[in-house]
């Protein structure tokens, strides 16, 4: 049986797709058979972030409506061979997703994969509800910012009351906090919520902190999940998070501002 993990946040643009691509690739790099499903029907993007946009033939809606077999719609990654992607539809709307359709897809994928990662759309409408419904675990992607924290709290409430686990009383969805776009320099200046504050407010176990990093944009430009950029601080932070998820005891990094030398302060230097 596969573990179903939803990557969710409530708020838009906080880094769910970036995280789904990186985390999924990271699990696959560790030898886990992993499939990442894009639930953002109508606004497909995971394919671009993972660099497979030119290989999309069928999508999740085609499978649900019986127009294609699941195997025809799955795209096998060429970099990591235990990784696959199930793209969202670009043209249909969210109503094309049904609970039974998603259930069947997840059941079928469960036979061949260890982890099924669901990249949720923003909001708490149908697409987001279906992305989290079958979850055993949840990565709560949160930026250190008031509206993001509030929406994460809201999504935690939804997970506890409206997921399959909640409805069928199968025990709680296991929640993991992933703070992304963290800027230690701004935290130090008192301009941004501290990690401890976000943790205290949401009160769920911390899986990782991904710093604000220019490498994320660079990675998306080239369609490379940022975790494959092993030099970058964001890539390293995602790798740490994957290792922690798989049970390793890895200390948190990148929580302090980078101390620039005089030379770099004068002539500028950027976070890798």
């Amino acid at each position, binding site marked *: 049986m596969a573990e179903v993990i939803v990557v969710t946040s409530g708020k838009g643009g906080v880094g769910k797709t970036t995280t789904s691509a990186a985390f999924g690739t990271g699990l696959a790099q560790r030898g886990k058979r992993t499939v990442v499903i894009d639930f953002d029907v109508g606004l497909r993007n995971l394919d671009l972030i993972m660099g497979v946009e030119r290989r999309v033939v069928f999508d999740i809606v085609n499978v649900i409506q019986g127009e294609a077999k699941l195997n025809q719609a799955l795209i096998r990654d060429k970099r990591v061979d235990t990784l696959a992607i199930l793209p969202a539809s670009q043209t249909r709307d969210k109503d094309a997703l049904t609970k039974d359709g998603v259930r069947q897809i997840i059941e079928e994928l469960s036979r061949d994969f260890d982890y099924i990662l669901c990249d949720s759309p923003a909001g708490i409408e149908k697409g987001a509800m279906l992305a989290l419904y079958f979850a055993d675990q949840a990565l709560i992607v949160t930026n250190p910012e008031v509206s993001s924290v509030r929406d994460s709290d809201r999504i935690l409430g939804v997970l506890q009351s409206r997921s399959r686990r909640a409805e069928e009383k199968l025990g709680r969805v296991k929640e993991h906090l992933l703070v992304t776009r963290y800027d230690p320099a701004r935290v130090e200046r008192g301009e941004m919520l*501290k990690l401890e504050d976000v943790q205290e407010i949401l009160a769920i176990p911390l899986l990782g902190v991904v710093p604000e990093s220019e490498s994320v944009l660079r990675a998306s430009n080239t369609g490379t999940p940022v975790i494959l950029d092993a030099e970058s601080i964001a890539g390293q932070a995602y790798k740490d998070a994957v290792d922690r998820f798989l049970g390793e005891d890895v200390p948190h990094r990148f929580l302090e501002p980078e101390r620039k030398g005089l030379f770099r302060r004068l002539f500028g230097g950027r976070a890798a």
Partner: protein
Amino acid sequence: MRLLDLFRARKPAQASASAAKERLQIVLAHERIGRTREDFLPKLQQELVAVVARYVAIDPAKVAVNLERGGDMSTLEIEIELPGPQAMRLQAAASR
């Protein structure tokens, strides 16, 4: 950036982050309650106004409601403008 600025300590932080934390803690405390049982304050307000309206004819436009949700305590402030003696006399005459 002037060269001198590099060596000068930064200005004391304008600590907006602590305001963010405080505001979040309060709003979430209320929203979490709302999840398990309905927030009773809006209903309380409606019923209070209805009770007053049973005794005096009040103008709905002249009811001001202020709700301030706090950490330790919330205040519900309802200001109902009652018609003055003149208007009351007229009303009484009209209803006779």
